[in-house]
């Protein structure tokens, strides 16, 4: 009795899952698309379409103020022009110099992170203190530094003069010092971010490694060189790559403080792009710059993918 009913029910039930499954799969497809579609639509209109347009416009000669019918196709002429354009080359050069901020900032951050990691007291105060510039608005920070760097009245130069330095540099007003001043501010801003990431990396190093080294009588320097440095190497690589990418996007500081001046000494690729597009209204050349920017970032990201595994030194 019981056996036959069992067979019966299994016979009835068996075909059902198949049907339900195929219906389910179909259903899953629609549900999946529904969940991701707002994001997909947004990204398509605001990122994918524009990047395609950037590539196309980089081959054109066109100004914002004229009608689209005035657009002329010039092939790669815009790129040829750019590599003969002194201001653009200067901007690329400045970007290259600006990259120096990344390793300097990382070294300072690593030492601060180690100091904070060892400290028992005020840990969260230190985290907040060094993180302050990173969360503060760049415009407000830039304005504060602008006044601090004031050539004659600014507190920094008054301090230098009181130390007996008669002709202190004019900082952001001096073509020879403007870029260095902005690099200084950039380091000050980025230390918090780098430090927090390093702190997390330091905290994940197993303590017994250090204990074992202590038993072997290793000095602080040896421990730093043979344990800490290799263990944080993936973090170092990550910070280096993201840091370099972000130096190519520097804009706010330049826009508020110097507008690329004095004498183009602080012009950088994104500032140059903005100036060409929205001040000179030259779409072709600015799009060509955007394409170059895209490929620079693309190349660095590629290095990141390839290097990720090689750079882990343990």
């Amino acid at each position: 009795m019981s056996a036959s009913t069992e067979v019966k029910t299994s016979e009835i039930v068996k075909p059902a899952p198949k049907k339900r499954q195929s219906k389910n799969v179909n259903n899953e497809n629609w549900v999946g698309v529904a969940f991701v579609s707002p994001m997909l639509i947004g990204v398509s209109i605001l990122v994918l379409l524009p990047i395609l347009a950037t590539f196309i416009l980089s081959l054109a000669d066109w100004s914002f103020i004229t009608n689209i019918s005035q657009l002329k196709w010039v092939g790669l002429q815009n790129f040829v022009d750019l590599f003969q354009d002194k201001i653009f080359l200067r901007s690329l050069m400045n970007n290259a110099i600006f990259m120096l901020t990344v390793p300097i900032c990382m070294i300072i951050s690593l030492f601060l992170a180690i100091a904070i990691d060892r400290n028992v007291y005020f840990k969260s105060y230190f985290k907040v203190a060094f993180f302050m510039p990173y969360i503060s608005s760049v415009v407000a920070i830039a304005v504060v530094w602008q006044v601090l760097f004031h050539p004659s009245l600014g507190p920094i130069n008054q301090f230098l003069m009181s130390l007996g330095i008669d002709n202190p540099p004019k900082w952001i007003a001096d073509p020879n010092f403007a870029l260095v001043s902005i690099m200084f501010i950039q380091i000050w801003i980025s230390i918090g971010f780098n430090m927090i990431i390093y702190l997390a990396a330091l905290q994940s190093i197993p303590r017994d490694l250090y204990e074992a080294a202590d038993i072997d009588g290793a000095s602080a320097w040896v421990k730093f060189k043979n344990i800490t440095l290799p263990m944080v190497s993936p973090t170092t690589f990550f910070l280096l790559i993201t840091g370099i990418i972000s130096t190519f996007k520097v804009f706010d500081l330049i826009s508020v403080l110097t507008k690329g001046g004095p004498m183009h000494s602080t012009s950088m690729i994104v500032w140059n792009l903005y100036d060409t597009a929205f001040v000179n209204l030259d779409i072709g050349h600015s799009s060509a710059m955007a394409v170059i920017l895209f490929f620079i970032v693309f190349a660095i990201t590629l290095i990141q993918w390839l290097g990720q595994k090689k750079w882990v030194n343990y």
Partner: protein
Amino acid sequence: MTIIMLIISIMFLLPFVWMLSTSFKIETDVFKFPIQWIPERWNGFNNYKEVWFGDNPFYIYYWNTIKVTVCTTAISVTVSALAAYGFSKVNFRLGNFLFLIVLATYMVPAQAILVPQFIIYRKIGLFDSHLGLILLGSFSVLGTFMLRQFFMGVSNELVEAAKIDGAGHWKIFWRVVLPIVKPAIATYGILRFIWTWNDYQNPLIFLRSDHLLTIQLAMQKFTTINGEFYSLIMAAAVSAILPLVIVFIIGQKQVIEGIALGGVKG
């Protein structure tokens, strides 16, 4: 060691201290040397009154910024959470392919697409509007990626169990998964709030009308107009930074953990 670190951290914060103290001074005392860290003559009330209710009243710009920031954060968190759920918990055809597309757009620097975005915005009438600015910040690949990592941490058995109980994906998303990843949502929300509040580039390019300006642009405009009144400028700077400092101190743990976990950067 602690003492040395304390001294370094105080030196590190000196620009903020100078900003705060200058904002309370009368103009003629601003550049007195040696620096008066505590103002001798107080003028804070008038300085802040001028900033907030003067010719370029900050309360208007504050309201604009709050509006844009809160809307951007809310939409961005919603869109990212939905997409993150779709990409991690719904097993659908093309799912991985679509995720790769979204991920690939993360490589595109925002500055490389400014010109076409500007042209599109002019065409469809979103230029010079808060709605346009909000939409620009609402589709974050970073947010989707970050939340997806957390969603993947929610066990699939839980989702399957809910399915057997007859729950649809919407119900699972809302009732099962979302409550578990609440801290991650909060972290991303706070980060998005900070980034949007501090955004300078998008408002600069996509806003024109004076009454629509956000606090960052207002700050710059205020500096241009009041060129030589440094005490006023510092009062404006304090006003621009203060809300974020409050948000940061309240959400300190989430922000720092979020940054450390994902190694994210606006």
